[in-house]
């Protein structure tokens, strides 16, 4: 139990620090790298919770594909240095207020109305394996799964239509 706790605390420190670094860094590249580190730490947390599939999918999809594309765009557009001050001044106040609200809500739930989570039964321990996830995904949650894939397809077609070359209209 104690080694688990030490590991968890170390991971939590890295996760929170990298999240803060991502928010506070003035360089877009360092922000992106902090986010990659954060994704990696969260993946290890998933592993500790006995969900290897989601952990490795997290690294492949988020750290491996999405963040690489982010870095690609940042470098291609040459927007490594953020300008001083925000473009939307009211955004900062709003963010502080909503952040404080979330903090207050969490504190209320944890300290004033403590809830106990149901204990995980030993038979459920294999829930994170690829086989178990596939079985649930293609039987119980087939419809949501298919709907999500259609949604992604629509987004993809939308991106292609928006960026596609248009024929010049002067030809007629």
């Amino acid at each position: 139990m104690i080694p688990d706790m030490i590991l968890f605390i170390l991971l939590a420190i890295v996760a929170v620090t990298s999240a803060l670094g991502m928010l506070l860094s003035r360089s877009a590249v360092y922000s992106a790298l902090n986010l990659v580190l954060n994704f990696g730490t969260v993946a290890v947390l998933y592993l500790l919770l006995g969900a290897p599939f989601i952990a490795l999918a997290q690294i492949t999809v988020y750290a491996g594909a999405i963040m690489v594309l982010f870095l690609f765009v940042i470098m291609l557009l040459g927007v490594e240095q953020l300008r001083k001050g925000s473009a939307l001044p009211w955004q900062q106040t709003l963010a502080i207020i909503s952040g404080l609200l979330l903090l207050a809500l969490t504190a209320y739930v944890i300290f004033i109305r403590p809830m106990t989570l149901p204990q995980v039964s030993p038979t459920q321990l294999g829930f994170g394996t690829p086989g178990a996830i596939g079985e649930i995904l293609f039987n119980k949650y087939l419809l949501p799964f298919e709907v999500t894939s259609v949604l992604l397809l629509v987004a993809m077609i939308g991106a292609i239509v928006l960026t596609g070359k248009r024929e010049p209209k002067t030809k007629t």
Partner: protein
Amino acid sequence: MEYGLILEWIIKAVLMLLILLIGFAYTTYLERKVLARMQVRYGPNRAGPKGLLQPVADGVKLIFKEELIPAKADKLLFILAPVITVLPALTILAVVPFGGTVNLFGREITLSIAGDLNVGILYLTAVTSITVYGMVLAGWASNNKYAMMGGIRATAQVISYELALGLAFIGPILLASSMSVNEIVNAQGRMGWFFIYQPIGFIIFLIATLAEINRVPFDMPEAEQELVAGYHTEYSGMKFALFMMTEYIKMIVVAVLAATFFLGGYLGPFVDQVPWLGPVYLFIKVFILVFGIIWVRATWPRFRYDRLMAFGWKIMLPLAVLNVLLTGAFIILFPGVIR
């Protein structure tokens, strides 16, 4: 936790690193010799008999070279980038079995670090997907336009070919009905090597891995006629050596993966009776594949960049999807084949 087990893991990990490092050194020698033969030259022949000590001489030279850091470079990332590049290449083979179970000093030892991992293939895709960071960061941190172009090209290329590569993995997964690399090798022992069932998948795998490791004819990120040396233009000394090391280790790694998924891994005649033959068979298969990669380099010119992208998205990806479809249909139509 048993201390013997931890010791076993440490010994295996150190052995793996040593094998990859020695493999790196002598793959460079092999490449130079084979290229020289194919171009009617001698190749390295001064250091030691037949030039066999050439890799050692190169290593010593690179250690004593001066290390330059450009004045306007991003120092932290410039130093970190070679390390980020080499780590995935060194860790990726952890899930690949090098042989069956052997009896050593009265202990049953499996010849792999984590071969039975039930998410083995996902581990492989996760590690291959983060290999590109080192190249991109090296290109960006150097603050040099050629290095930057190399980094950007590397990103676009690796992302494009990763899709086809990921889909090529699905064929062996379906046939073995498991994501564990060990299980995939065992299934090939029962039903025959998978390249018989997966000819398209095997070819897609070979092409996509060549593109992933930036070898000729897909070496756009470091095309010397256009980009000096691409993302490692500004690097020298040991940092440069780390990039070279990654390239050659990746060559070995993709050869091991291709052999494991499509050519039966460590399987071969009499491997059941004499388990120590496993690594030998794997070595032979890997040697042939590495020789093939070098042969390709000596033979084919480089792709043009737009053709490379068009080939990846318009030919490789649809073919890989078709291969998955065909494999699925095959398994449903001939359920007796799956054993």
